[in-house]
């Protein structure tokens, strides 16, 4: 078993953990801070994937990243416009955008339900050429992803401590207080959702370049996995400076991927993966609650024994 931690599968799990961790970060903003269940995450992920893949195929792997993020911002803007200006229930707004994005993603991939990036230069393939060292060849993907994720965490730490960032954090906590602090909560929700969606799209774009393909169904189930990662992360790290909390979320994502990889080691048929994921997600969310119950039960038992 210990061999596992040195093996390439461990590194792959970490890479996926970092990559998908961006979606968990997006949910940290929309669900953790703004208290909004944003169900457009699935569609937005595929949007980032589609835009990223299209631009990479067209020969612009570096441009693909900001382009995908911009697409994510648009998606987030539409979702928040529905909620703040048109009075649509937040959950419905997410579902509406998710549904509409299906067609848009299809169009973004050139009216096709999948897009092959194999053969085009990606940021990973370009980075591979930088050095010939053996350790580099094993870890360059991990390093690129690590740099991107750390940069995002640092930027988030700075941003969430500015006026706008503080008001976004307060909006999910006490919306009236935001209004009393002379800031429009509709505006903070819009900015928060745009940022969250851009992170989701970024994750999709990186996946397109990582797996060298894009499929219309790549986004399905992302919100559930990201939520599980977020829950695991928050169980690990709940308080502290923003940077520490965002690292916690990423760790949660990596841990989730690790657990899935270990579960896969038991040679399950592919169909069982979904059930295994569901069980892992439940366990992640229930463990803190169960810990409380166990300690309560223990205290009760010891008091009964004392009497």
């Amino acid at each position, binding site marked *: 078993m210990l061999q596992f931690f040195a093996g390439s599968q461990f590194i792959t799990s970490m890479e996926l953990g970092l990559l998908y961790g961006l979606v968990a970060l997006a949910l940290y903003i929309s669900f953790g801070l703004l208290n909004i269940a944003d169900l457009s995450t699935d569609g937005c992920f595929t949007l980032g994937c589609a835009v990223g893949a299209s631009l990479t195929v067209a020969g612009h792997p570096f441009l693909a990243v900001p382009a995908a993020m911009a697409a994510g911002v648009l998606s987030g803007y539409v979702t928040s416009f529905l909620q703040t200006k048109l009075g649509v229930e937040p959950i419905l707004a997410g579902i509406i955008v998710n549904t509409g994005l299906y067609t848009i993603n299809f169009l973004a991939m050139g009216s096709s339900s999948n897009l092959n990036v194999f053969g085009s230069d990606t940021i990973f393939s370009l980075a591979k050429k930088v050095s010939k060292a053996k350790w580099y060849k094993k870890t360059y993907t991990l390093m690129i992803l690590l740099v991107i994720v750390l940069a995002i965490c640092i930027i988030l730490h700075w941003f969430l401590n500015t006026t706008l960032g*503080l008001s976004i954090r307060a909006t999910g906590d006490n919306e009236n*207080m935001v209004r009393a*602090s002379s800031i429009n909560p509709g505006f903070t929700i819009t900015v928060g959702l745009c940022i969250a969606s851009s992170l989701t799209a970024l994750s999709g774009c990186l996946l397109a370049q990582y797996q060298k393909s894009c499929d219309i169904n790549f986004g399905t189930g992302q919100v559930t996995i990201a939520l599980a990662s977020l829950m695991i992360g928050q169980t690990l790290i709940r308080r502290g400076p923003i940077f520490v909390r965002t690292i916690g979320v990423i760790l949660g994502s990596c841990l989730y991927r690790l657990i899935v990889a270990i579960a896969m080691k038991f040679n399950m048929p592919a169909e069982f993966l979904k059930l295994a994921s569901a069980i892992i997600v439940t366990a992640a969310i229930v463990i803190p609650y169960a810990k409380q119950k166990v300690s309560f039960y223990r205290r009760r038992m010891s008091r009964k024994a004392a009497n």
Partner: protein
Amino acid sequence: MEYMLQIENVTKTFNPGTVNEKTALRNVSLNMKRGDFATIVGSNGAGKSTLFNAITGAFFTDNGKIILDGEDITFKKEHLRSRDIGHLFQDPLMGTAPHMTIEENMSLAYLKASYHRKSLFSSITKKDKEFFRTQLAQLHMGLEDRMDNPVGLLSGGQRQALTLVMATMVTPKILLLDEHTAALDPATADKVLELTRKVVSDNHLTCLMVTHNMHQALEIGNRTLMMYNGTIILDKQGQERASMSVEDLLEQFSIQAGKELDNDRILLSGKVEK
């Protein structure tokens, strides 16, 4: 400008035309001079909180005008009005964000002022943090040592005191206190009231305070208002107010309330009683 706050003939009806129709404010007019500290008493449902909500802009009035420091704010949005208005509620949990620390809450209140925030992206400096510390120190509650604690861990009285500090850190044009000590134990209520008095007099604030305590209504501030059924039925200041006792106030109240009651009796029994 001579008057800080002018409310002219403001009316507000909720749910017009339905079975829940309630005229909360009927043709209310009020002029507050700079530095006036008025207490408001009245039964529940008299329209005191509604009047405050009309001033802060939680809704737009049906007709009438509201002028704050010479500016017509009748149709100004709530979050734009709040720059100049401080509003405290009876519920001590309403003024602060529980998952954020004391320091972060104060930062938000501090950055309310446009002269403190250069842009949406300005952060709090060490100097600002020192300022927060001195502001909290005047409460003598030990909060300045707990600035990294989430506000949710504080007691109701501490949260209300913090909300008061936050509302007055950036001097507002008018301070609205809606029974802000009602949910606190007597000792903490006294502390918060003392702080209120001090803050209002130090900054020469114009202040409206709702209270159910008749003694407070006559002792605190320089003006007493009484509301009933959406109108202001009593407005005493100066000598008139000084010569009023609590019994006089209660008598005024029952006379006004009794008048309403008499009308009902007329309707129900068909007799006119003296």
